[in-house]
């Protein structure tokens, strides 16, 4: 279970003017549930995810996971997975090594990590692309690789940042359904940020809107 308590963050705009991104923000995501946060582009949703992942410092407040205060833990020790808006696949590695990346960081021997990555890729219907460079894949394929890479280490929390925004409309709805199933099957605790309310409603049990640094319940 993820809890955010009294989160505060001021964003310093280099071109002048500071604005409040999170102002005494509170949120709870129960284990195994998916929660969505809605908001227009530039409302600070991505920064919120980065703060939870430990990539962005907080001004004030606490990030608690399963009852433990973790806001001093570095990102690699939190065991969360963040899926970036444009996937952030590593262009110098092939598909299989991209997926295996997290396992290698857990000291799994590389041949074994690659084999387990291949197994997961097969599950995602991507085994034929295993040896390819990631930039040769289509957008949907890159999206699946990014999800596989995020899921392979069985993270405690999955953070999704506009996961389908880079895809065309048709692919978006089919992939959304596929992702929902995979996340449910894996029993993943998930926090999703998006600007698309249809997407948010179809994937999550609870929805909030980020307004002036506070969360407003939508459903």
């Amino acid at each position: 279970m993820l809890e955010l308590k009294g989160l505060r963050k001021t964003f310093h705009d280099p071109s002048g003017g500071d604005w409040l991104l999170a102002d005494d923000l509170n949120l709870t995501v129960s284990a195994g549930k998916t929660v969505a946060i809605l908001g227009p582009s530039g409302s600070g949703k991505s920064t919120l995810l980065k703060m939870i992942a430990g990539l962005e410092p907080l001004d004030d407040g606490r990030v608690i996971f399963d009852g433990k205060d973790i806001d001093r833990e570095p990102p690699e020790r939190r065991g969360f997975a963040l899926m970036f808006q444009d996937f952030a696949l590593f262009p110098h590695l092939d598909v299989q090594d991209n997926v295996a990346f997290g396992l290698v960081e857990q000291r799994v021997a590389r041949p074994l990590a690659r084999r387990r990555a291949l197994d997961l890729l097969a599950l995602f219907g991507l085994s034929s692309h295993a040896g390819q460079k990631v930039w040769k894949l289509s957008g949907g394929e890159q999206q699946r690789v990014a999800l596989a890479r995020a899921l392979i280490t069985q993270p405690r929390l999955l953070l999704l940042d506009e996961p389908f925004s880079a895809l065309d409309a048709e692919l978006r709805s089919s992939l959304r359904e596929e992702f929902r199933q995979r996340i449910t099957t894996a029993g993943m605790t998930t926090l999703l940020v998006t600007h698309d309310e249809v997407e948010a409603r179809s994937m999550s049990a609870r929805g909030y809107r980020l307004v002036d640094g506070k969360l407003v319940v939508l459903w």
Partner: protein
Amino acid sequence: MLQKPLFQRLAVGLLPAGFLLVMLAAPVFRLLFEGGASALAGMVGALWQDDYLRWRIVWTFVQAVLTCVVALALGLPVAWVLARYEFSGRTLVLRLLMLPFVVPTLVAALGVLALWGPRGLISGWLGFHLQDTPWLLLYGNLFFNLCVVVRAGVDALAQVSASRVAAARTLGATPWRAFWRVEWPAIAPWLASALSLVFLYCFSGFGLALILGGQRFATVEVEIYTLVAHELKLAEAGALALCMMMLTGGVALLYALVEKRLAAPSRADVIALRRPATLRQGLAVAGAMLVLIVFCAAPLLAIVARAALAGPTAWAVLLEEETRLALGNTLRFSMTALALATVLGLTHALAARHSVWLRASAFLPFVVSPVTVAFGLLLLYPQWTASLPLLVAAYALLAYPFVAKSIGSALDSLPTHLEQAARTLGATPWRSFWRVTLPMIAPALRRGMAFAAATSLGEFAVTLFLSRPEWMTLTTLIYQRLGRPGAANLDGALVLACLLMALALAAFLLIETTQAKAIDNRTQRKINRKKAYHA
């Protein structure tokens, strides 16, 4: 709170910053204030009163500006041809354009003399030579700097958006008008950046001016050298050095500002290459190649030709013990300097991400002349003058900005979220640097190292001051041979120049492999395209 405080992020920069302080800032201040600070102030004013020194300053400025103007006038059309036309050998020409960057100054100067000097190939034909005229130095300047402008021009023209040019054409602009109203504004910053580099090279050049300038057309750097080494007028030398640094510093700042603007995202719709179809287009391609041959290839070909014609007795120089010693020293010093330069360049570039000042300081070794640094070192660390660490450190000082610059621009174009992605996948900062950042900047690192290696191999100015005889390098051996009796020694010098050139080329090819570059380019383009898509 996970972001480390600024000083902690800058910790990696302590090494290069300390190095710059000890090896560059301190020696320069030492030289500047040798004559006393108040004397220095009075001296700067007095410089302009002196006819002779005023001529030196004016000429130094004029030759740099002239080189810029000619390099732009010749380089832009050549760049346009290379950027717009597809012809066989085009890729090879683009790669060969790197060649002048790795040719040691001394070799270039020899090449220019072999063509236009008193006993040069062309002078022999025409019956007159260019020694003691300004043209010799200008030609040498163009050899190095035409390629800078052409390469910048080709890169810039490749960034021009095809749809914008097309839009201009449909709105009624002729190709010529479209060039001036759409292409020119887009490439101008690139050219401005290249020209400020050209100005810096020419304005603060030493080696070329020392050998090609003669008595009348030498530059201020040579004058500083003469004032300190021969006349011991330190106050005047310090004042001159100060003037030079203020001017070059200003231009370098301009360059840094222009370059920052160039980080704009590149467009995906590049203008397609076409084959030259009409006679005029064919002539344009031929003309461009001719310009490159005359200014960039001829001096090198002249050295090779003269050396080849010299006969076996001249080539026997390669077997002499002196040559073996010099070759060994050159390799040893260059490799050690390269190792040091790599560490310094890498740490500098990493730290420079967080500090504009540190970023700008990578230009310092370009701005301050080797002559000034060498004399400052001599004054500041007399007990180390003939010590290997100081010599190698001076080599590294001159070589490492290439590494820092190359990695710096690679880091700029590296999407930050890749490292963040690695962190969320469980990698520590060090691991994500090792597994993601380093492999991605590896091609840039290799390229920087290639330039650094070539610089060290051809180092000349510092070696002239800080060396001792058993440390003779190939460059000092060539310089020595030039000053020994008879034609046999000149031929020997030419053969040695061939060896040095081959060495620089080999180092360059060894480090910067073709395959790695191709992959890097494609990757980069893909990333750029994705960035553009999201923007």
